[in-house]
């Protein structure tokens, strides 16, 4: 078993470019897609109503209140052009009591901006409907504002451990999402070595050697696990210590989650290996299927965005949704070991079932 493992390692050591490209893709992808949410963003706002000046003044102050984004009144033509040319992801067109987002993309930034703007408009609409019933408009508004600031019932949101809840960090979520996605690819391509070695006759040579079948599978699977885990670990350490991303205090728990995810993902790749006859077929199938899985699992979106039961069911069949669930709990809500046992168990379950079926199919394809 060990010589087979070492031979796989020697191949990658001789040609490390692919591994380096995958690590760079993880980091590059995260930086590219999360740049908008990691740093304060300037969002252009404008109005094209008759009383545009008043509308812009009113909403500019309300939108900027308590936000980590900066809403700046801009000329409408300039704001539209910036969006069209890709210089900004989104601009907000203000109406009297409503708004429209001007955007050309589906980036997470857009959802993030929309979420904030909607909250501000809904709150203002509530206040507006209340003051319309009153004669003392200014007095009532002041009273509402005071009550909102000092409500009779004070609801405190805390984390599972009772500590203060940190704000939801979409950038960190995307960092893990891209890391898992890229790891899924490298794991799949390494599991595909089983098929490649079968086609080139190396597998038969191994069968005729004293290495047992169990030893052969263990070596290939262990190597795929190893390389996938090393890739994820490298990316996460770079984000934590070089790019200063906040990934929480429990690196130990994160590594356990990643280890479970790796095993589970290797099993899924083995299952897909069993469905095809040639490595080329795997290269066609795997990259077509894998990018869809994180999308269905909703790992690029705010939790709870995907509500369709069919999609969530499909997503739950793959380990990435469970891994992401556990990671978010650990990184953002300081979850402890016992809080993440369920996703871990689900990943093991997926891994065991997929591995069992996968190896069975791989064996049937050749005998």
């Amino acid at each position, binding site marked *: 078993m060990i*010589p*087979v493992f070492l031979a796989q390692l020697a191949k990658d050591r001789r040609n490390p470019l692919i591994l380096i490209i995958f690590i760079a893709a993880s980091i590059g992808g995260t930086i590219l897609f999360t740049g908008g949410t990691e740093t304060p963003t300037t969002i252009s706002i404008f109005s094209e109503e008759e009383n545009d000046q008043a509308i812009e003044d009113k909403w500019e102050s309300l939108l900027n209140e308590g936000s980590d984004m900066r809403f700046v009144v801009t000329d409408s033509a300039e704001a539209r052009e910036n969006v069209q040319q890709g210089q900004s992801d989104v601009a907000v067109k203000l109406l009297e009591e409503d708004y429209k987002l001007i955007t050309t993309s589906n980036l997470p930034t857009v959802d993030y901006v929309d979420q904030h703007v909607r909250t501000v408009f809904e709150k203002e609409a509530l206040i507006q409907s209340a003051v319309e019933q009153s004669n003392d408009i200014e007095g009532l508004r002041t009273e509402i504002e005071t009550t909102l600031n000092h409500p009779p019932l004070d609801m405190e949101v805390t984390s599972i451990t009772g500590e203060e809840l940190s704000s939801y960090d979409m950038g960190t979520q995307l960092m893990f999402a891209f890391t898992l996605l890229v790891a899924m690819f490298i794991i799949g391509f390494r599991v595909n070595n089983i098929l490649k070695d079968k086609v*080139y006759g190396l597998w038969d*040579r191994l069968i005729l*050697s004293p290495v047992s079948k169990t030893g052969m599978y263990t070596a290939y699977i262990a190597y795929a696990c190893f390389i996938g885990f090393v890739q994820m670990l490298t990316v996460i350490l770079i984000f934590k210590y070089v790019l200063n991303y906040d990934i929480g205090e429990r690196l130990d728990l994160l590594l356990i989650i990643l280890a479970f995810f790796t095993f589970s993902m290797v099993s899924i790749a083995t299952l897909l290996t069993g469905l095809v006859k040639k490595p080329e077929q795997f290269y066609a199938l795997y990259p077509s299927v894998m990018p869809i899985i994180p999308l269905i699992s909703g790992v690029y979106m705010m939790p709870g965005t995907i509500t369709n039961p069919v999609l969530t069911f499909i997503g739950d069949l793959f380990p990435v949704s469970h891994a992401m669930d556990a990671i978010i709990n650990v990184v953002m809500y300081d979850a402890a070991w016992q809080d993440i046992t369920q996703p871990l168990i689900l990943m093991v379950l997926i891994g065991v079932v997929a591995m069992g079926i996968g190896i069975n199919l791989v064996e049937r394809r050749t005998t």
Partner: protein
Amino acid sequence: MIETIQLSKRFKEKTVVEGVDLYLDKGESVGLLGPNGAGKSTTISIISSLLKPTTGDVKLDGESVIKNPGDIRKVLGVVPQEIALYQELTAYENLKFFGRIYRVPKSQLESRIQTTLELVGLKDRQKDLIKTFSGGMKRRINIASALLHHPKILILDEPTVGIDPQSRNYILEMIRKLNEQEGTTVLYTSHYMEEVEQLCDRVYIMDHGKVIASGSQSELLSILSNEDTMKVQLNQMSNELVKAILEIDVVRHVEETGDSIKIIAKKSSNIISNLVKLADQQNIKIMNFQMENPSLEDVFLHLTGRTLRD
């Protein structure tokens, strides 16, 4: 040493190997000759325990290999038809890998690698990547990988496919040395009859999954003892003449080869006088006439009506 008993293999509805009986004595060099698709590779896959037969058995020193595949694997070296090597690794790294999986003792591994590299004539290229090697060099390392654990039986599945004559001769000479000097039992499959003629003590001829003839070369050639093979060189080739020769009742086969024709006909016949008469009638001159020794190719032709490369 090894014998197969009524070996058959069926894949779904297709019978690939049918009722094959063969044996190899210790130190023998045995050829398995047949055209592509004759069932040679399937037969050796069953003998080497990679495939299970549908019916029949393979015995090594009287013990069933099907029941105990581990017994034969210990003494077997198999050279597959494919280049079963890690292309991204060097020749040395590949041999080290195969030495380790065959559990060659650490203390002996290095010396065995060097000896084997010397045997295949690639000691000076050991640090080069396999992917930079020529076809012939890859084939030689392919063979070397099967020799590190000093197998008693060496099975080679068409090890010279697609290589230049020089590398081919090198490989054949290497196998001959292993057989004669090291006493390695060799089972060699090929569809090149010259290779089998050069290397093997005994030959099994396979076609459509069956052994259609077997024996030493002289025994097989004696099948043709009632026939003459002759080569006739003409001043010009004529299809009419070929057709006319074929109509002579003693003629079994006529084949055009350049400006000559090869004729196989029953012995003691008046073929020569008939031939001269036919050529005269068509104003064709016979430039040269030569009686040829029959080859295994002719034996195959006699048995099947086809050439090995058909």
